[in-house]
């Protein structure tokens, strides 16, 4: 088992696995996205309170869940890198940050665009919105701390600690609609959430599409990161020479 993990985490093997896996994430992403968009925009009925305006939920909720999930993955991968010194975990943590920040930006902007017709304001200093904005700042802090060091190992160490400390924010975001009396509506998933089965299917499809998108982007970005980190090793030279651009 341990040997298997070590083999998986050797940079060369990791790079090749990423190359092989790319189409396995790209095509499911496209498939789930197309069906999910059809279900979101055509099949799902209008909401009894919010009319057709609620359809923003199908981009807003998956990206908001992903923004938190990616942060958790980033912190855990950073922790694995710290404890077991697995370099590829550091790579996964580092490349996850800009992707998670992008999901956070999508959640915040789609939420603002949804807030305008429903609340009459693009932005309010509500607990949910504020804690999600803090998540964006955590991502930005992680990225700038990571790029502040020349040595990638030192960079990974200090930024992983920041990521782990920032984990505190995740339960705050999740429970903010319960703990405080917020303008933001309650949970969309689970009891008291969406009740129409077509709406649930649409949300599930878009969520799965978002997961595939995340993994696809990790795979692409991790390859770049591995090439740069391992540029002095023999296999990278062979790899680069074999590519025709």
């Amino acid at each position, binding site marked *: 088992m341990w040997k298997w993990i070590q083999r998986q985490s050797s940079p060369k093997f990791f790079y090749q696995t990423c190359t092989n896996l790319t189409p396995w994430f790209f095509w499911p992403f496209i498939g789930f996205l197309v069906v999910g968009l059809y279900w979101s925009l055509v099949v799902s009925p209008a909401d009894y309170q919010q009319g*057709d305006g609620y359809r923003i939920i199908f981009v807003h909720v998956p990206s908001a869940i992903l923004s938190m999930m990616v942060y958790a993955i980033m912190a855990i991968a950073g922790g694995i890198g710290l404890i077991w010194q697995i370099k590829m975990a550091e790579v996964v943590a580092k490349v996850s940050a800009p992707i998670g920040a992008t999901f956070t930006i999508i959640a915040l902007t789609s939420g603002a*665009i949804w807030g305008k017709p429903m609340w009459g304001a693009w932005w309010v200093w509500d607990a949910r919105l504020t804690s999600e904005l803090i998540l964006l700042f955590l991502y930005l802090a992680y990225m700038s701390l990571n790029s502040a060091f020349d040595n990638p190992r030192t960079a990974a160490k200090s930024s992983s600690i920041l990521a782990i400390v920032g984990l505190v924010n995740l339960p705050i975001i999740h429970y903010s609609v319960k703990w405080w009396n917020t303008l933001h509506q309650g949970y969309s998933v689970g009891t008291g959430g969406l009740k129409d089965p077509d709406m649930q299917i649409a949300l599930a499809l878009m969520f799965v599409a978002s997961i595939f*998108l995340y993994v696809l982007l990790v795979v692409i970005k991790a390859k770049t990161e591995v090439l740069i980190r391992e*540029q002095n090793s023999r296999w990278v030279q062979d790899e680069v020479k074999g590519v025709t651009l």
Partner: protein
Amino acid sequence: MTIVEYFSFLPYGKYAFYVWLAYGVSAITVITLFISAKRDHKKALLSLKNKYSRS
């Protein structure tokens, strides 16, 4: 005529502007991230190729 009324000919009527704006902004953001990831990889390959050919 406000911008919201202007776009009300699209599906979803009075919400059309907001719904399509949200979907549009999200699509552009994702596509930008995807293209930049691909471009970064190409750039890295190119610069390494140059580096190795010099040595």
